[in-house]
């Protein structure tokens, strides 16, 4: 039976700051190279989300103004639909600003809290304009890595907000080099069921193809049962991964 993967790209025109579409390209290409039929649907602000029609959701990061628009739109039904989908086993990847919006709230340096959708048990606070943004290359130790994958994830982070996890969220990994969630507790990202949030862009998936495959597996498994992904020649990606690890140190 032919496999198919249905990807939902949320707010592609608003939250696309750091090459985020590279994550979509990577998921789609790596699935197609295995003969999986891929359909990517873009869901912008104001368009209803029929969450049951997708296996994998992606949401990226944006500038403050764009993030406010997306946060408002998530409160109009999309947030609840996403929570429900993840409870039912859907796969989700949220990066940077999108990651913050998956939490309970984002508290800016001044002004009112931006409500999140409480899909991940975390909250984010901006420490004030005088505190530096957390910017730079980052390497984390993946906790735990899926079988066969190397132990590290690499990327670039650039965020003002500091994120603290609650008890229901497991960190995606531990910081080896860089800042991570808040620059203090060495945690990076969050995981809950098949939902992942992270500050790693770069974008995340091209230089961490094993994470892309992990997400594709999780997403396919829900409708297609246990599936095997044929190995690909990842030499170029592995070299880029190693180069990024060296660059971060």
């Amino acid at each position: 039976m032919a496999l198919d993967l249905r990807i939902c790209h949320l707010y592609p025109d608003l939250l696309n700051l750091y090459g985020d579409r590279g994550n979509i390209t990577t998921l789609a290409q790596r699935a197609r190279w295995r003969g999986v039929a891929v359909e990517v649907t873009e869901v912008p602000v104001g368009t209803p989300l029929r969450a049951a029609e997708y296996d994998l959701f992606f949401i990226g990061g944006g500038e403050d103004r764009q993030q406010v628009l997306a946060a408002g739109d998530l409160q109009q039904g999309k947030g609840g639909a996403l929570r429900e989908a993840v409870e039912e086993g859907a796969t989700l990847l949220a990066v940077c600003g999108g990651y913050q919006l998956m939490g309970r709230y984002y508290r800016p340096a001044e002004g009112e809290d931006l409500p999140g959708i409480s899909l991940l048990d975390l909250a984010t606070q901006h420490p004030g304009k005088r505190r530096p943004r957390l910017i730079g290359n980052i390497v984390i130790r993946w906790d735990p890595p899926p079988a066969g994958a190397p132990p590290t994830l690499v990327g670039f982070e650039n965020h003002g907000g500091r994120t603290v996890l609650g008890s229901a969220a497991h960190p995606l990994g531990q910081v080896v080099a860089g800042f991570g969630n808040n620059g203090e507790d060495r945690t990076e990202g969050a995981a809950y069921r098949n939902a992942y949030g992270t500050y790693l862009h770069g974008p995340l998936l091209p230089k961490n193809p094993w994470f892309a495959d992990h997400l594709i597996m999780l997403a396919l498994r829900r409708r297609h049962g246990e599936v095997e992904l044929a190995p690909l020649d990842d030499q170029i990606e592995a070299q880029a991964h190693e180069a990024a690890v060296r660059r971060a140190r």
Partner: protein
Amino acid sequence: MTDLRLGAGILAGRLSAALIRALGAGGATTMPGRVARAVAPDLLARLGRRLMRGSVLITGTNGKTTTARLLTGILGRAGWRSIHNRAGANLPAGIAAALLAHSALDGQVRGDVGVFEVDEAALPLVVESLRPRVLVLGNLFRDQLDRYGEIDLVADRWRDALRRLEADALVIYNADDPLVADVARDFPAARTFGIADSSVRRGEALEHAADGRYCYRCGVPYRYEAVFLGHLGAYRCDSCGTARPLLTVAADNVRLRGITGSVFTLTTPVGRADVTTTLPGLYNVYNIVAAATAALTLGTTLGLVRTVVRDFIPAFGRGEQITIEGHTVYMLLAKNPAGFNEVLRTVLSGARPVVAVIAINDLTADGRDVSWLWDVDFEMLREHCRAAVVTGIRAHDMAVRLKYAGLPEEAITLEPDEERAIHCGIDLLALGEPLYVLPTYTAMLRIRDLLARRGYVRAFWED
């Protein structure tokens, strides 16, 4: 006492410039300015005041160096002596270094007018010091997010800079850029430039890298009648009616001729002129129209503009043509998504698939974050590039990008060493075929440095 201090600053700066050159340590385009300002912090303001015809400042994400060089060329032909940061050192220290090089110890400046390109983020400070007579705002694209932060923050700095302008100053801005127009449209003395020929539009839909999608006032997406480049075009907000301002100076009847340049009609308040240029791409049409608007504002004639544009030779690394071992090599700086897309469109506009060297660095001046490579439409290369050599500090990232853009792996050569990469590119050429080198900023300087040592080009500060 303060005059002594100014003299001491000038002396210190000039000595350091002489020392740097004597040591062969570079072009002394910034450091002398730093030294001089450490001794005399108000040096920029005090030297700037001595320029009889004042200063023209040029800022924008892309095209500053070319626009400033065009303007200096036109003013020079009109008999004005310009002081100009030609080598592109565009922070306050670089501008100070340019002024210092033409100042006597008593603070007398040997020049009539300052033509300075200015870093986008440094604009308020430079405006405050130099009190320019004319300010040219070119365009605003996402660039070096790790350094400048969000594009809205840069726009806010420009708003701040406009508030600091003298009452008799004039602002010249790109009306096709909604982000720029929003900064400048309410300034009392403003002139605009843009493209009037909708035949060169890319369509009505924005490309992925477009930034200014939403009306600044009401957050509704702009409706475009024509998109020319990135988010530049003829736009309107259907909610509040904000639209592209009327164009004072425009390019009409534009005919792009790929890498060899373009021809177009310049329409101005003082008449029309047909213009020919060897500067390639639509982005250079914008640069020419910007420089022409500034030159006409300062009182030069349209005929002079036309002559200088026709004879203009591209600045270092900006469409520069180099001959290496009998092969023609074009070097086109590409430092952000909007700029890279335009360079790709220009290079790939011919019938034959090309050979390209893509050089990606991640130093401070490039932006340390290379995620922007995924905002560039490298998918364009799939049908139009037969071989790509990737090089630079981030060569591996670029190789991955091309793989996922759909280039066959055998068409991608990974060679982190820049010199070997250029040779590798040349070896791939057929007889008479040109090589296209597409570097980020510091990669461009590095490759030019390597070529200068081999005698193929002059050092960038001599160019």
